């Protein structure tokens, strides 16, 4: 009886939780947009860059993949106390972006390198510049190949957005904690929070599958 009453309180908080979904999605989409652009750039530097450009990309990737997201997050956040003020919301967006860009650079690098050398050779033989070859021939194919791995990384970003909790940003996870504390029903609350994330990741994966299908190159089976 007491359980039912408490359960009702949790269920009543669902709209509040869903408000957090909106913030979560904002953070995720922003972080993905930034990290994808950065990731592609880094991969190009890594594959085609010479000297310092190549090395920068390599070091960035190794460094960012050796640091926990929380460390990066706090570093960005505390930069505010010394150099520039970074609000918590942007700290999590940037932390997610910088961190994910490192993994994405590896994904895109793998995809670019999996395109056969002959493609670039044919482009050059026609008189295209290397730049034209990269953007007109290599990248259109490489990006398609990267989609499944990118989609996987994107769901990781979505899930990692929950670490915004550490900075008190009121996205889904933090709101879950409030509800759990207010209703004293952690089990039920977190199950619901978990289900919401599950729906989000499922929906995202399904959309990525559809996109992959739509941009596929006819005749090529993966």
């Amino acid at each position, binding site marked *: 009886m007491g359980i039912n009453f408490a359960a009702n309180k949790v269920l009543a908080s669902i709209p509040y939780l869903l408000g957090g979904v909106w913030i979560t999605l904002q953070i995720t989409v922003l972080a993905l947009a930034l990290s994808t652009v950065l990731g592609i750039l880094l991969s190009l530097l890594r594959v085609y860059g010479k000297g310092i450009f190549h090395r920068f990309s390599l070091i960035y990737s190794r460094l960012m993949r050796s640091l926990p997201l929380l460390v990066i997050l706090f570093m960005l956040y505390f930069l505010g106390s010394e150099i520039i003020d970074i609000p918590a919301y942007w700290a999590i967006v940037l932390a997610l972006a910088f961190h994910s860009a490192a993994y994405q650079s590896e994904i895109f690098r793998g995809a670019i390198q999996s395109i*056969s050398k*002959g*493609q670039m*050779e*044919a*482009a*050059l*033989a*026609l*008189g*295209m*510049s290397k730049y*034209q070859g990269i953007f*007109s*021939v290599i990248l*259109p*194919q490489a990006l*398609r190949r990267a989609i499944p791995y990118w989609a996987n990384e994107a769901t990781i970003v979505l899930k990692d957005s929950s670490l915004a909790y550490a900075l008190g940003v009121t996205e889904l996870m933090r709101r879950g904690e409030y509800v759990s504390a207010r209703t004293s029903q952690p089990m039920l609350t977190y199950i619901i929070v978990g289900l919401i994330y599950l729906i989000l990741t499922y929906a995202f994966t399904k959309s990525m599958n559809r996109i992959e299908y739509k941009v596929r*190159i*006819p*005749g*090529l089976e993966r």
Partner: protein
Amino acid sequence: MPKPILRIENLYKKFRDTEVLKGLSLTVYEGEVVVIIGPSGTGKSTLLRCINRLTEPDSGDIYLEEQKIEPGKSNFSQIRQQIGMVFQDFNLFNHLTAVQNVAIGPIKVKKMDKKKAYDLAMKELERVGMAEKAGNYPAELSGGQKQRVAIARALAMDPKIMLFDEPTSALDPELIGEVLEVMKDLANAGMTMMVVSHEMGFAREAADRIVFLEDGVVAEEGSPEKIFNNPERERTREFISKIARLNSGGDDRGLNNK
């Protein structure tokens, strides 16, 4: 006096420790069809790739119609445009349809108007007999069809010379014929061609000159009659008869006279 389209002087190329081209010199004249034969690993492909600089030679000079080919010079892209290349593995752009493959060169490199480029592309596709597959992607085409589109793609750039790097070696036997037909038509139309191939039938019918490459230099060259029937050197004769026996359509009739 036919004018020289391509002049190769003293080409040297070393891979790791193996010297593949050892001072090779060769001139190809306008309208000539030169077929290059020789044992594997003697640098036949390397030779072609050095011409359009897909591979950098160690030393030597190559001239396209009196213009020295030098990467880094402002006219380099222009020179590459005038040299058409057909690869053993086709290397069609997988994400583009046949007509897009043929049109992309003119659009991106010659900055041609899109409509003009597509009209030109369709014309070239018709020339190789692939017009009805214009909207298909490479993965939907057979090997022979892919190679024909690849030829159209090179032709669309209006080259002065066409280089063929073992164009039929990656094809199933029954598909070889359609590609050779297109190449023969091209030869008859007066295109200057340099072909690396094992297809003796094609060499016999279409070649003006056969060049036998061995040990990184031109070991022997001459008309098909001479090379097939009366080669000067022993090694040439050995090679010809070996190839002829391996070739389904080949024969070494002429050599039985010895």
